[in-house]
């Protein structure tokens, strides 16, 4: 398939592997922040091809994984209201809340619809004017512009029954918080999709403040291998900087129009990340101008008390301090069919990816 096979070329991958081996003298830990990278790395068996001196660790880039249990509990409370239809991306419905999950609620009769695009959620709202249609807005700068566009569209069309329940987050505060907390890494594989929107400037603080490199990477094996090589070269030459490997998609300035929409609809707020706690200005809150589409403001609901699961080490795993195999629950009590933590639910979660491909 064009634009894919070229980036899965065995010979090219082998050449990069050799070059990495030749270049790497120091033991390095590189963190992939994006869940899509985690998935790709496991799916293609990339760790197998790297020299022992290059270690990959997974970061907090799976949107489902970093979303708080309290958020799920509130979504469950919404779906129990008789006049509410929940629309969501598929991954979220299996995430356990404190005492239930959206999947269980759906089996009991709640109206929960899986959509592939937020525009489908707008359609649901259009077709069900007597119901309140709530879209569960999770994800980083990748999915947040979609939510912003939908809110603007709903506002212009007078679609007053359309709401977004935002848990949207932005990436840089988490990347900085990890280093501040003392997580030992030597460089970041930067998220390709997030950067398509934001451009490279959001990462400038990382080489400047922390002396660590960021290489914005694509998702195919050749992309990832090349990005690893670029990072290893930066480290060996002691020249940390922000570089774009994924040049066929990411422009240095990003997608200006999407950035403007984000700015128009959302404002920063402090937000809670699983494993990292509250990070300053890391969440996206719907601005007052658009509050008629903000589920949190407009739909009152009683939410049960949030109970965190015992023994689950999703937190340290998201920080790259522990690997899924270090968790006592991994593969025994916590499996993809009966997940305890969110990292085991999403296909981008590190526990799910390890369970699936690398046990």
């Amino acid at each position, binding site marked *: *398939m064009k634009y*894919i096979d070229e980036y*899965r*070329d*065995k010979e090219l*991958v*082998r050449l990069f592997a050799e070059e990495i081996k030749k270049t790497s003298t120091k033991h390095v830990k590189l963190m992939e922040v994006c869940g899509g990278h985690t998935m790709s790395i*496991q*799916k*293609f*068996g*990339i*760790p*197998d*091809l790297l020299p022992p001196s290059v270690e990959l660790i997974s970061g907090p880039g799976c949107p489902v994984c970093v979303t708080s249990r309290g958020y799920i509990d509130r979504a469950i409370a919404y779906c129990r209201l008789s006049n509410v239809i929940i629309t969501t991306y598929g991954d979220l419905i*299996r995430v356990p809340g404190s005492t239930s999950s959206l999947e269980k609620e759906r089996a009991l009769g709640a109206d929960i619809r899986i*959509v*592939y695009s937020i525009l*489908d959620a707008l359609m649901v709202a259009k077709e069900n004017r007597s119901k309140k249609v709530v879209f569960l807005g999770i994800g980083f700068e990748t999915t947040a512009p979609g939510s912003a566009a939908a809110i603007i569209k709903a506002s212009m069309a007078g679609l007053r029954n359309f709401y977004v329940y935002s848990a949207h987050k932005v990436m840089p505060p988490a990347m900085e918080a990890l280093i501040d907390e003392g997580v030992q890494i030597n460089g970041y594989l930067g998220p390709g999709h997030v950067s398509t929107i934001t451009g490279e400037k959001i990462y400038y603080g990382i080489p400047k403040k922390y002396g660590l490199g960021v290489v914005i990477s694509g998702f195919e*094996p050749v992309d990832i291998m090349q990005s690893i090589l670029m990072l290893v070269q930066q480290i060996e030459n002691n020249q940390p900087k922000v570089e774009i490997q994924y040049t066929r998609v990411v422009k240095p300035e990003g997608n200006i129009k999407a950035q403007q929409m984000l700015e128009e609809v959302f404002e920063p707020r402090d937000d809670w990340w699983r494993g990292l706690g509250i990070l300053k200005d890391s969440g996206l809150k719907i601005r007052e101008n658009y509050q008629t589409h903000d589920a949190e403001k407009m739909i009152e609901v009683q939410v049960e008390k949030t109970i965190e699961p015992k023994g689950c080490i999703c937190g340290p795993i998201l920080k790259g301090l522990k690997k899924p195999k270090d968790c006592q629950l991994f593969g025994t009590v916590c*499996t*993809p*069919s009966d997940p305890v933590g969110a990292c085991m639910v999403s*296909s981008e979660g590190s526990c799910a990816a390890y*369970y*699936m*491909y*690398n*046990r």
Partner: protein
Amino acid sequence: MKKNDTILLGHGSGGKMTHDLIDHLFARYFDNSILRQQGDSATFDVGAGKLAFTTDSFVVDPVFFPGGNIGHLAVAGTVNDLAVSGAVPLYLSAGFILEEGFPMENLETIVKAMAEEAKKAGVFIVTGDTKVVNRGQCDKLFINTSGIGQLDSEYEHISSGINIRPGDKIIINGSIGDHGMAIMSARNELNISTKIESDCACLNHLISESISGCQQIRFMRDATRGGLGTVVAELVKGKSFGLKIDETKLQIKENVRGLCEMLGFDPLYVANEGKVVIVAGADEASEILKRMKQHPLGTEASIIGEITSDHQGIAWLETVIGGKRIIDMLSGHQLPRIC
């Protein structure tokens, strides 16, 4: 039957309307001497030896999809379950649960598809049942088929796979993921213009022609729900051998791959309805492959992997870039209501 007729509750009452439906539709298309007896049970002679018996229910959504409809699936699914056990499929039952208001014309198309598929496979639908439920109590129609086949004693070991040993080869009769992605693309919510056809087909002739006279057929399974990945993961579970698949040998149609990439599906786990996985001794594998390729349903057959003495209890994939990863069973569902 008139063109705009629909199914009414009366069609399931057991009275005159039911009889009319049977006479004008089911008996007409499924016609055979055993069905014609119209007794409470179908009766027939069977030869000496063992019988194989299987059942399957079909709830696919949508009922009509590129490459077939629920009727094709209902016959092929049960025929294939018998055939991969090494049995010769003989007789089928067909139970229908119909939703009030379902268009008669659509039912006729489906029944016709079942009759055609049965004829192709050389099996007879010899007994059946019809129930009608209120609108909203089932989605259009559900079909259950059960099947009986004759099992030769030399093939008794096939369904358990007890004779599998390291060095055996894994063969499949063509591309993977077609059915699942055909269903996905046919669902309205996606608005996809690409036309992916289901591979839905009866495999009994392909199988019998490929394996007849072979001494080293160790195991067969049709890779339906859960796809090829689930078949190989199940096969090695708790066993003293491993299983290696070479990703470069897997055939995936361009449009199937495209849709999988777009939606984040792994084609290894996407359903097929016309694919058989055969584990055969290394000495015979190439002969089986040669015969398969001569059959219209096996022109793209290939040897995709082998049984290994290492990696015991694990199925693993050598990836296109030369890496390794585990192939595990899928948890939860990748796609609901695909068959």
